[in-house]
C-alpha cells in the first residue's frame, strides 16, 4: 500500500521536475530559471550527501565482515584503518592539501594506484603474444588496423616512414570516428528513450525498481 503510494507520488514529482528542467532549457523565463537552478542545486547537495552515505555504508559493511570473520576479513581492517587515518589527518590539519595529507597520498595511494593502472601495459604485452592471432579475415583487418594506429600514436611511426602514421590517421578519421559516431548516436537515442520512459512513469528503476 505504502509502496504504491510512494511510487505514484515519486512518479508525479519526477514528471514535474523533469518537465520544469526541460522547459527551462527551451524557454527563457526568470521564474522558471530560478526554480530550475534551485532544483539543480538540490541535486548537487544530494550528490554530496551520497558521499557521506557511501562512507557510512562502507563502514557498516566492513565492520560486519570483521565481526563475523568472513573470508579476507583482515583486508577490511586495512580499509577501515586507512579511512580513519585519512579522515583524521584531514580533520586535524584542516585541509587535504596539508603536507601530512599530501605525504600519505603521494607516498602510498598514488604509487599503488599508478602501479595497478600501469600493470595493464604488461597484460597487454602478454595478450599481444597470446591472443592477437589472424584467425579470420576480420581478425586480420583488426590486427593490421591496430598496428597502423600504434605507429600513428607513437613518434617512431613517422621516423620509420611518414606514410605509416598517415595510414593510421586515415583509419582513425574514416573508420574509427565513423563507427564511434554511430555508437554515440545510438547511445543518444537510447538515452532519449529512457528519459521519456522515466518522464511518463513507464521506467520504475529510479524509483526503487519495477514491481
Amino acid at each position, binding site marked *: 500500500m505504502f509502496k504504491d503510494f510512494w511510487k505514484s507520488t515519486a512518479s508525479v514529482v519526477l514528471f514535474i521536475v523533469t518537465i520544469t528542467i526541460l522547459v527551462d532549457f527551451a524557454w527563457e523565463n526568470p521564474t522558471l*530559471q530560478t526554480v530550475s537552478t534551485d532544483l539543480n542545486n538540490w541535486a*548537487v547537495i544530494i550528490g554530496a550527501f551520497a558521499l557521506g552515505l557511501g562512507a557510512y555504508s562502507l563502514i557498516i559493511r566492513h565492520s560486519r565482515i570483521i565481526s563475523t570473520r568472513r573470508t579476507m576479513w583482515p583486508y577490511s581492517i586495512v580499509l577501515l584503518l586507512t579511512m580513519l587515518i585519512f579522515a583524521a589527518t584531514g580533520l586535524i590539519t584542516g585541509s587535504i592539501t596539508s603536507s601530512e595529507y599530501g605525504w600519505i597520498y603521494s607516498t602510498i595511494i598514488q604509487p599503488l*594506484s599508478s602501479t595497478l593502472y600501469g600493470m595493464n601495459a604488461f597484460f597487454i*604485452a*602478454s595478450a599481444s603474444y597470446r591472443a592477437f592471432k589472424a584467425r579470420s579475415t576480420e581478425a586480420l583487418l583488426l590486427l593490421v588496423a591496430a598496428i597502423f594506429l*600504434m605507429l600513428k600514436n*607513437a*613518434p617512431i611511426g613517422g621516423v620509420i616512414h611518414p606514410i605509416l602514421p598517415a595510414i593510421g590517421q586515415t583509419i582513425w578519421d574514416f573508420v574509427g570516428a565513423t563507427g564511434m559516431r554511430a555508437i554515440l548516436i545510438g547511445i543518444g537515442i537510447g538515452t532519449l528513450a529512457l528519459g521519456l520512459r522515466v518522464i511518463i512513469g513507464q521506467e520504475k528503476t529510479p524509483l526503487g525498481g519495477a514491481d
Partner: protein
Amino acid sequence: MSLRETLDRNYKQIIYLCLFAVIAIPLMNPIGLPVPIDKTTRDVYDRVDSLQPGDVVVMGSNIGASIYAEVYPQYVSILEHLFRKEGVKVILVGHGTEAPIFAEKALNEIKAYDRKEYGVDFVHLGYIAGGEAAISGMCRDLHSLLNVDYEGHPLSDLPMMEDINDANDFTIIIDFTASADSQFWLNQAYAPYGTDVAFGLTAVKVPDAYAYYTAGQIFGILESLKGAAQYEVLINRPGIAVKGMDAQSMAHLFYIGLILICNVKYFMGEKK
C-alpha cells in the same frame, strides 16, 4: 629441458622483463625522437594562445592517481601556458575527489602563487560533488551553487569572481579526465551557452571525443601522453611527457613485434 621449452614455459616472465627494459631504458637515456604535432593539439594551443586579457578559462578536472601519468602532464602544460598570458583569468574546479590535490600540485609546480595573485588572476574552487548536476549548477549560476572557494574564502571576497556568474562568462573550458564527465561540459556549457570546450584525455577516452571534434563541437583534444608531449614542445617546456614518448615508441614497437611473432608461430604450424 631445452631452451625452447624454457622459453615456452616462462614466456610471460620474459615478455614482462623485456617490456620493463624497453620502457625503462629510454626513460633513463632519452633517444630524442622528434615529436610531431597533431592538429587536435595545435587547435588547443592556438585557442589558448589567442586569449585576450580579461578572458576566463575554466580548467575542469577529474585527475586521480590512476590517470596521473597520462593526464597530469597535459594539465601542467596548459596551466603554464595560461599563466604566461597576461590578464587571463583561470578557474580551477574538480569533479573528482582527488582532483584538488593535483590542482594544488600543478599550481605549486608552476609557482603560480609567486607569479600571479590569487583571487585576482586565478581561483581554485576545489571539488564539487554531484557530477553533471554540479557542472550544470556552475554553468547556470556559479554564485548560487558555491559561496566559498577551496580554502573557504568567500567568493564575494575574490575580485575576479565579481563578474563571473555563469557559462556566458567563461571564454573556454578545458576538461581533463578519463571518464564520461567530459561529456557533461558539452551538455551543460556548449549546448545551451555555446561556450567553447576542449578535452585533455587518456588514450582510451579519445575515440569518442574525436567524434565530437570532427563534428566541430569541441575545439581540440590533448590525446594522452602524446598530447601532453606535443603541448610541452609547443610551449617550449619539455618535461616528463616528452621523455615518455621515447618509451612509448619503443613499447609500441615491442607490442608490434610480439604480434608478429605470435602470428608467425601461428602460421608456421602451431594453429592447434
